[in-house]
């Protein structure tokens, strides 16, 4: 079940999704962070950020709608406190970065490159572009590509750069294509789906931020579709698949669609030890299929007939 992230060997392919593992310490109370494939950090920004006012979260059927607004300590506190702590516990760390300008992204990539122990950078492109009337970078192939190009340019060459894409686009392959062309070493999909819920009693939007990102099993079919389309277009680009993974079977579904690593997100709020459980269940699923390694099933749903694998009854 080992996986590779650039130079870094991962003990397994189940990661935590950005923004769902806190600073790592929260989960470490329940699970050994060294045994998680890698911890993808909360999206780190240049400065401390308060995020949105409450209410920030709403439970929806098989989903969670959030408008947390990237609350975080800023890169200085992250490098001074959170990253060393994770490394001291033996975790592999993928740092998710977010910015309001291309320069902020590039600056963050530069800061992380001066630091030992960053296994990869994941670029959260679902941020409002301060220079484009608050439009998300991820919505436009050219702007997404510009961010990735800037990050790739200032990040140390041996640190892989993954672009995290939003499903809220007409053509996700076009955005993926721009990111790959700009130098992305891999893709991470999907981020949350924009949604909204209204409190009928108050007759007002329930979230203070009005709209929120929908996550959880409710969006899993969207994730599977996005991974499938991008894998079909770029069969050689590694994909971290995420979106509603609750169980080993869900992870298997994303692997079959073409992801080579899996990130568990919202389920961590429901079950803080979800990563180890999903891994164990995935191993069982693979055993049923007669697959020795996860790599044997990656992208196999694209094949006309499953090769060398036992078909499930």
């Amino acid at each position, binding site marked *: 079940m080992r996986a590779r992230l650039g130079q870094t060997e991962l003990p397994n392919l189940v990661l935590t999704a950005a923004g*769902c*593992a*806190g*600073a790592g*310490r*929260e*989960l470490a*109370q*329940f699970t050994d962070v060294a045994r998680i494939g890698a911890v993808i950090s909360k999206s780190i920004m240049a*400065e*401390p*950020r*308060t*995020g*949105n*006012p*409450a*209410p*920030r*979260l709403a*439970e929806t*059927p*098989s*989903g*969670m709608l*959030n408008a*947390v607004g990237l*609350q*975080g*300590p*800023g890169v200085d*506190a992250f490098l001074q*406190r*959170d990253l060393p702590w994770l490394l001291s516990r033996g975790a592999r760390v993928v740092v998710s970065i977010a910015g309001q300008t291309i320069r902020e992204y590039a600056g963050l990539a530069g800061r992380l490159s001066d630091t030992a122990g960053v296994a990869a950078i994941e670029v959260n492109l679902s941020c409002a572009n301060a220079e484009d009337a608050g439009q998300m970078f991820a919505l436009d192939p050219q702007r997404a590509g510009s961010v990735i190009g800037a990050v790739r340019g200032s990040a140390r060459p041996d640190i892989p750069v993954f672009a995290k894409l939003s499903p809220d686009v007409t053509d996700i392959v076009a955005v993926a294509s721009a990111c790959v062309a700009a130098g992305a070493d891999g893709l991470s999909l999907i981020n949350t789906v924009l949604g909204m819920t209204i409190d009928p009693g108050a007759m007002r939007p329930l979230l*203070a931020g009005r709209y929120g990102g929908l996550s*959880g*099993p409710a969006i899993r079919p969207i994730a599977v579709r996005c991974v499938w389309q991008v894998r079909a277009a770029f069969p050689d680009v590694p994909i971290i698949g995420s979106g509603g993974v609750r169980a080993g079977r869900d992870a298997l579904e994303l692997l079959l669609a073409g992801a080579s690593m899996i990130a568990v997100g*919202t*389920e*961590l*709020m*429901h*079950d*803080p*030890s979800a990563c180890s459980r999903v891994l164990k269940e995935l191993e069982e699923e693979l055993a049923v299929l007669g697959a020795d390694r996860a790599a044997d099933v990656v992208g196999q749903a694209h094949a006309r007939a499953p090769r060398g694998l036992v078909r499930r009854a």
Partner: protein
Amino acid sequence: MPRSSAARPAGRPVAPVQIRGTVLTLRRVDAYHAMTLVAPAIAAKFRPGQFITIAVGGPDTAMLGRRAFVVHDVRPDHGGTVEFVFEARGPGTRWLAGLRARDVLDTVGPLGRPFPIPRDPSKCLLLGVGYGSAPLFGLSARLRERGCSVDYLLGGESADRVFGALTARRNGRSASVTTTDGSFGARGPVTALLEQVIREARTDVIYACAPVDVLREVTAIAGRYDIPVQVSVDVPMACGTGVCMGCVLPVNGTDGITRIVRSCVDGPVFRGDLVRWDDIGTIPFDALGAPGWAAPPAGAAQPARGAQGVWGAAQDRHDRGVLRGAVPPGYTALRGDSA
């Protein structure tokens, strides 16, 4: 009714555990339900004021948020049980209310910051509204062990929504009750009776568990009498462990800087005078990290005033950790962090 666990030195809080808790009993208590779980690992570590979370709806549930419940009581029987009180008012709590003995629940706890105990024996007023009173009785036992006296002020909408009045009468030096409809005790909100109780009981310290608007008023009244107050906030939570960032409040630090903190890990118990009650549901412009925020020059921030000297070592650690900025915002006060 509540029994305190074995006396524990006022050491640092211990890490929570995730266990499968078995339902021992589920009973109606007037308008509420009380559920007892066999959960020895949680009962052994619990301190009054802490809470547990439960995954609701079974293994394939469509409800992803865990439900948080402040613990009412722990007992040594069956190796250790934990009891909590709830109202069946949404799909998750209605599901819980339909469970039976021997059902098994994914349970995490004990979570959150417990009530700090005064350094010296004090006259303590314990104020609770509705089933929010539940954690006060374990606290009362602990306070009385330490030589404190306990007066109660309990409230609710109606007689069947005042929780624990009988226990309060039994173990309190005094117990006052108010209801909105006047069906039990005095008519009106608890805050209408608060000043009278403070004066008659010569209260040194207040503990309050109530809706936010009541806590705001309790804190204001306590401020007028210069009485230190600890509040347990009832803020909706989705995870209880600090990862979802949903249960945030603006809280003033003892360094004078306001931070947006999570009530699950930095609370649910806070010093009432440090919570920015009027700014709940907003991001105050001067909160650390707010748009346009800049670090004030050293010494410019005004440290929070108030009767800090009353509390023991646990509060000191909390002040040093979260509230003095030793820990960055949003990443605060996890167990074992303040070292």
